[in-house]
Structures are given as structure tokens and as C-alpha cells.
């Protein structure tokens, strides 16, 4: 005998039935997209084209066209890399960690969040690839392949190599997890296409659904697979940003050589990722009229996660500052004094304002349930998180041990253009996803459309 509680509010509003879920979500795949979608795609493609020109210039001329100099050898490229990888983390947190915690509100947002993860990781990967300069030789530098340099293997002691394995595993496992979730929904679209007499669409979506039928036995195996993938993805997502932070933490540069980096980076990643999920979903729910599926309640819960992770990040900043003084290490102390007071103080204080102060506004219920305020703050948080990485990377480098090599970093149009390239890539991919794939996990949402009190009455 099952006992149901009706304490919680329904997660899907508007009195939707199971059939409504198929209709409301599949119709965006079946119908012509709205004009706003075409406009957004056109803008993304223009940005992508300009970015591609800049990327090609970098590949043709070498990374000398960037604003790097002999003191600041890492700047925008690695900042953007860490920023994009961080954004990806929210998707896995929503789909894997919230699954393990049985948080059913994840169900209407996990699909779009996972798509965001995959596109964000692709964007992130472009930076180290391009930074290699001659990326066609990169296979031998990054992968343990037999080669013509004697048989000198890749260095497994290097965090940069761990990164190669972490990012590519993360990308592959996230892609598989996302695709497994899509399979039943592709079958729904296929069967609707059969009913509508559109055989070409039926054939395409059948191939994508691997001939899914939805038998009880297959569903049982499917759920076992989803649970284990969630169990594997949870430590994986924590390992990815941990390893990214080790790119810095295992070095001896003051400002990077810090043991709190792994948890600090993971919290920051989830923080920025949730902000990006909010930015995307607030637009998607309006354009595709999904207000009954992505409700204010969902937005409020995500904002609460932003308060938590934002506060963790704030504490990490203050700890770092305190330890640099308390350690008594002159160089460490100067690195932080320079961040707060030096020529890059503007970026440090932008970071502090955007990441530490702005999320605290979500303590006020009116703000965390306001769509406009959430949208604005989600962008503010992402700007702040970009500055965090910029501050860590550039301010730790620009004042070397020898004052004669002190310098200031200025980005060129190619630094900016390559960042724009990833924006064009990200939004083009996301818009294509939103048109051709079901943006909400129909099969999962169907299992929660009925409130539990309704189940008892049967």
C-alpha cells in the first residue's frame, strides 16, 4: 500500500494532463519557429561568423595576435575556458545530483540545462585547442599516443593532462546522459508524426530514438541506467572543476598556490552555471510559452541555490584574503594586496560586487520570485564570475617577482573576437536544440503532472 502526501504544491501548473505535456512540448518541434527565434538565430550566426574570422586569424598568424606579453602568458583564453566549463556544471548538478536527492522539480529544467552543459563544454574546449597554436599536432601533446619523438609519452604528472581526460570524459558522459534522456521523447515525436502523416519526420525521429517502444522491461533497465549515470556523473562533475583548479593550485605562483581552490572552484562553477540556466530558461519559457512547466517556484529554487553557492564563493574570497595575510608569506600577501589596491582593483571590486553582494539580494522573497530581477541578476552573476577568473589569472601574473617586468594586459580584437566566437557557437547550438529537440523532458514530466492527492482518489 502506497501512502501519498499532498503537502507539496504541484510542480506543473495549469491543470495539464499527460496528453497536454506531449502536445505543449512537441509542437515546437512540429511547427514553424516564431519570428523571435529566427531573429535570435540570425544574430547568433553573425556573431559566430565574426568570431570564426578572428579564430582563423589566430590560427593563421599564431597566438601572437592576442594581447599576451612575456609576463602575462595566460589571460582571456584560460579565463574564458574556466568560465565556460564552470557554466556547464549546473546542468550536471541538476540532472545528476538532484536526481540522487530525488528532487522532482529538476524534471522540467534538466533537459535544457544538460544541453547548456554540452554546448558550454564545447565552447570551453575551443580555448585550450586554439592556444596550442598548431592544434593539428595537439593529439600528440595531449593524448598518450605512440609518436615519433622517441617514444616519449604524455606527462601524467601534469594537471593540464588531467584536464584533457577530465574535460573529454565529462563531455562524453554528459552527452550520453543527455541523449539517453532524449530517447523516449524522440519516440513521442515519431509517433505524433505518424499520426500526422509526416513520414519523413517519423523516420528521422525514429532513428534518433533507436526504435524506442517503452516496454515495461526497457523502462526498468532505462531507470537503472539513468540512476547509475547520475551516480557516475556526480563525482565526475566535482572532479572536473577540481582538476581545472589544479591547473593553478599545483603551480607556485602566489595567488594560485592555494589549497582551497578545488571546493572554491566547484562552488563558483555551480553558482555561475545556475545563473546561466536562469538566463536561458527565462527566455525559453516566454518564447515557447512554457510558463506552466517552468514556474516561479522553479525559478525561486534555483535562486536559493545561487544564494548558497554565492555565499560559499564569498567566504572563499574572504578566506583567501585572510590566509594571505595570516600565512606571513610576503609574496602571497603582496599578490592579494595588489588585487585589492593595484591597477586591477577595478576588476577585483567588480568581482566582489557581482558575486558577493548581488546574490545576497535573493534573500528578499520579492526579488527571488521576480522574473525581471532574476534575469538581471543572473547576468550580473555571470559577469562577476568571468571577473573572478580574470582576477585570479591576470592579477597573479602581471606583477612578476622582478619589478622591471611588471606590465598591464590589454586584450586585442582577437582576444575579444574569440570570446564572441564561443558566444555565437553557444547560442546557435542552443537555438537549434530548442527548435529541433523537445526542450523539456516529456516522459519525466508526465510522471509528475498529477499531484499526489489526485492519485489517492482513484
Amino acid at each position, binding site marked *: 500500500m502506497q501512502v501519498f502526501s499532498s503537502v507539496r504544491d504541484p510542480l506543473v501548473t495549469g491543470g495539464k494532463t*499527460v*496528453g497536454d*505535456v*506531449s502536445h505543449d512540448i512537441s509542437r515546437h518541434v512540429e511547427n514553424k519557429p516564431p519570428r523571435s527565434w529566427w531573429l535570435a538565430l540570425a544574430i547568433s550566426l553573425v556573431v559566430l561568423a565574426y568570431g570564426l574570422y578572428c579564430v582563423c586569424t589566430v590560427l593563421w598568424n599564431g597566438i601572437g595576435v592576442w594581447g599576451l606579453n612575456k609576463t602575462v602568458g595566460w589571460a582571456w583564453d584560460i579565463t574564458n575556458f574556466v568560465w565556460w566549463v564552470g557554466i556547464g556544471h549546473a546542468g550536471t548538478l541538476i540532472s545528476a545530483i538532484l536526481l540522487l536527492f530525488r528532487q522532482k522539480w529538476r524534471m522540467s529544467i534538466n533537459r535544457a540545462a544538460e544541453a547548456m552543459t554540452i554546448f558550454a563544454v564545447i565552447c570551453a574546449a575551443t580555448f585550450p585547442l586554439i592556444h596550442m597554436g598548431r592544434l593539428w599536432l595537439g593529439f600528440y601533446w595531449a593524448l*598518450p599516443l605512440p609518436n615519433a619523438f*622517441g*617514444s*616519449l*609519452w*604524455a*606527462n*601524467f*604528472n601534469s594537471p593540464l*593532462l*588531467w584536464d584533457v*581526460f*577530465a574535460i573529454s*570524459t565529462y563531455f*562524453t*558522459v554528459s552527452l*550520453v*546522459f543527455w541523449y*539517453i534522456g532524449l*530517447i*523516449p521523447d524522440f519516440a*513521442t515525436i*515519431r*509517433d505524433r508524426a*505518424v*499520426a500526422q502523416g509526416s513520414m519523413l519526420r517519423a523516420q528521422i525521429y*525514429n*532513428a*534518433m530514438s*533507436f*526504435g*524506442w*517502444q*517503452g516496454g*515495461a*522491461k*526497457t*523502462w*526498468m*533497465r*532505462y*531507470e*537503472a*541506467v539513468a540512476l*547509475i*549515470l547520475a551516480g*557516475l556523473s556526480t*563525482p*565526475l562533475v566535482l*572532479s572536473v572543476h577540481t582538476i581545472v583548479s589544479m591547473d593553478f593550485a599545483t603551480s607556485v605562483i602566489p595567488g594560485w598556490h592555494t589549497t582551497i581552490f578545488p571546493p572554491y572552484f566547484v562552488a563558483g562553477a555551480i553558482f555561475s552555471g545556475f545563473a546561466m540556466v536562469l538566463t536561458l530558461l527565462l527566455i525559453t519559457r516566454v518564447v515557447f510559452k512554457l510558463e506552466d512547466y517552468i514556474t516561479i517556484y522553479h525559478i525561486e529554487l534555483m535562486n536559493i541555490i545561487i544564494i548558497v553557492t554565492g555565499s560559499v564563493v564569498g567566504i572563499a574570497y574572504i578566506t583567501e584574503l585572510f590566509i594571505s595575510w595570516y600565512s606571513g608569506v610576503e609574496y602571497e600577501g603582496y599578490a592579494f594586496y595588489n588585487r585589492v589596491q593595484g591597477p586591477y582593483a577595478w576588476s577585483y571590486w567588480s568581482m566582489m560586487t557581482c558575486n558577493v553582494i548581488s546574490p545576497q539580494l535573493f534573500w528578499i522573497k520579492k526579488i527571488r520570485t521576480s522574473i525581471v530581477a532574476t534575469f538581471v541578476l543572473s547576468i550580473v552573476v555571470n559577469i562577476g564570475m568571468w571577473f573572478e577568473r580574470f582576477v585570479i589569472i591576470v592579477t597573479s601574473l602581471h606583477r612578476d617577482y622582478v619589478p622591471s617586468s611588471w606590465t598591464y594586459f590589454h586584450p586585442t580584437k582577437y582576444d575579444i573576437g574569440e570570446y564572441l566566437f564561443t558566444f555565437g557557437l553557444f547560442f546557435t547550438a542552443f537555438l537549434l536544440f530548442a527548435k529541433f529537440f523537445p526542450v523539456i523532458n516529456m*516522459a*519525466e514530466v*508526465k*510522471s509528475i503532472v498529477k499531484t499526489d492527492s489526485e*492519485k489517492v482518489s*482513484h
Partner: protein
Amino acid sequence: MNADKNFLVGVFNDEVVLLDGIKKVRTSGLKIHEVFSPFPVHGIDDALGLKRSRLPRAAFLFGLTGTTLALTMQIWMLGYDWPMIIGGKNYASLPPFIPVTFELTVLLSALGMVATFLIVSDMKPYKWPRQFDIRSTDDKHVMAIDLALNSGKSKDEIARILREAGASEVNEKNFE
């Protein structure tokens, strides 16, 4: 009459009715071919008497393969094939090998398990499934009864049992 060709298909509107219906159909002595649902119904595996999936074991074994492969590769490459002193550590020093070992464990475990799932469930892109009722991916739960395997009962009797179990429609479906 050949098996796996002629079916009676009961259509259920609600998963709670369905779970109850499965028990009724099974106690009446009918063998259920398969039940198709638009979403996973909890408790359906018990109702149908399905055994727990062994996929977790497959995942574990694939994971173990990944661990072994990663450790062997790193220890052989940096410890034996081209030994080098890096940072004053031993040739085959274990701690720096842990991240790659972990990643490859996860990678092989995930890919191996998903591949096993697709193979045992006979899922492939070029396969068009036998559809008992196309609404089973929309909002209906569909129970298929193989007539040849239930030859002890007449078609009308089976239809009556399905209706009594809560099916809103009962249709005949024949595959050539």
C-alpha cells in the same frame, strides 16, 4: 496459431488503474506479452514479476576495466617504457595517476553500460519498432496479450478480462 503474431491490446488511461489491472489480469491466469507506457511507472516491475536488471553489475565490471587499463597504461608508460624523474618523485608514483584513473573508470563504466543497455534492449537506429498502439508514447498505457500463448481462453474471454481490469478500449492487433 503462431506465437508473436496475433495480439489483443488493452488500452489504459491511468497508471494507477494499470497497476491494479496488471495484478487482476495475472491472477486470472493470462500471460502478459508486454506493457508499454509513455513514462516509467513505479511498481510495474513488481506487478509484472520482472527480475531486477543486472546492468549495475555490467557497469561495475566496465568500470573495473577502466581502472585497470588506466593504471597499467600510466605505470607502464612513465614507469617502464620511458622512465623520467618528474618533480623528484618515483618513476611510477601513484598519486598523480589517480585523476586519469578516475576519469577512465567513469568513462568506460558509462559507455559500457549504455552500450550494454542498447544491445540487451535491442535498440538500434535503423529498427522500426512493432507498434501495438502509437498512443503508448503519448498518454496511454498499452497491455499486449499474445493470443497464441493464451490459447486456453477465447478471444472474447480475454477481452472481457482486460475490460474488467480497467482497460478503456480493447483492440486486436495482427503482425505479419
